[in-house]
């Protein structure tokens, strides 16, 4: 699974992830404070310039946003027809700008920096015993590691169906796929504990 990060050296690439996330929150709040189509139009234009300046090529940039842009367009069209034209335009410009800025942050921040940022944001909660900050990175790593495994298990199930002349049905796929995958949990957990990855503190209750 390839991340949506794009190699580059733009100003946005060099900005710290924390500042980018704070800026994203500020931009999204600001977008919902104004209702002026002219100001929102300017913002959308600026967002498009920003997104276009990251050097990922037109095709790639368009393919990434197409499904989201489609839902925005459908909803904006509904608003335009059911309410007023102005409201439809406001919805379209506002959400498109937000999408462009958010996509720009994603394209300029590597996955590792995000995880570092989230872990340090979770530290205060660690002190009150709500989460262990390092578990977040561990869990994310496990998911990325096991997605290909689940897909290849599906492939084996598909071939098993074919060999027996059976059609793929939700029940005959999901049930064995889930049981096979979850059965490996004990082994993986034992391997993690044996290596002391989560520290040697006794595990909390539950």
């Amino acid at each position, binding site marked *: *699974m390839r*991340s*949506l*990060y794009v190699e580059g050296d733009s100003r946005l690439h060099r900005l710290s992830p924390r500042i980018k996330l704070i800026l994203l929150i500020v931009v999204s709040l600001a977008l919902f404070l104004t209702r002026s189509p002219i100001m929102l139009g300017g913002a959308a234009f600026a967002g498009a310039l920003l997104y276009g300046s990251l050097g990922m090529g037109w095709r790639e940039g368009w393919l*990434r*946003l197409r*499904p*989201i842009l489609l*839902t*925005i367009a459908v*909803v904006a069209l*509904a*608003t335009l027809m*059911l309410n007023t034209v102005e*409201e439809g335009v*406001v*919805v379209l410009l506002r*959400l498109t700008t*937000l*999408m*462009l800025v*958010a*996509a720009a*942050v*994603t394209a300029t921040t590597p*996955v590792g920096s*995000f*995880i570092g940022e*989230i872990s340090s944001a979770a530290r205060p909660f660690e002190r009150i015993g709500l989460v*262990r900050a390092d*578990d*977040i990175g561990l*869990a*994310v790593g*496990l*998911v*990325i*590691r*096991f*997605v290909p495994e*689940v*897909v290849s298990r*599906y492939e084996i199930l598909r071939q098993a169906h074919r060999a027996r002349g059976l059609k793929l*049905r*939700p*029940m005959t*796929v*999901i*049930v064995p796929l*889930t*049981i096979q*995958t*979850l059965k*490996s*949990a004990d082994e993986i*957990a034992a391997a*993690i*504990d044996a290596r002391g990855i989560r520290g040697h503190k006794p*595990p909390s209750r*539950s």
Partner: protein
Amino acid sequence: MSTRDLVLSALFAAIIVALGLLPPIMLGFIPVPITAQSMGVMLAGVILGAKRGTIAVLLVLLLAAIGLPVLSGGRGGLAVFAAPTTGFLIGWVFAAFVTGYLSERFVKNSQGAMLQTAGFFAAAVAGGVVVLYAFGISYLAVVSGLGLTKAFVGSMAFIPGDLVKAAVAALAGRAVMVGYPLLPARA
């Protein structure tokens, strides 16, 4: 949280991601392919229970937010949270929690197969349809300025499909419980 619970949540998150990558599966009796990812949310609650199911769904959303294309159709990145349908994504978390919580309450080992499946179905509908749509429709109404009524009418087309998914999730949840029980028992 024990290491085993953490691993179970992560593995289930991987299953939800994989369900978004796989081609849609045809049901036997209706000619509509079902996209399996949103069913994965109900399955998480039904199979893992409230706590681990919620964490599994949170992990999927976290992966999407940090820039991995884990949502169906290869969507990912912070931009997916800018769509008018973002309320449904946020609702996933609460849907998994409610489905899991109610599954723990409704389904007991002493019950017969029919009753267990019915319990799972009721839990999946309450979480994966009622709670999910409450979040999705409220968010859509506010962001689009359409108002609750129009947002509700616009979302109704998807409810029959989600009821079918709840039924499949209930059947699958019971089959997994028989084969490899994980659901924490609750008095």
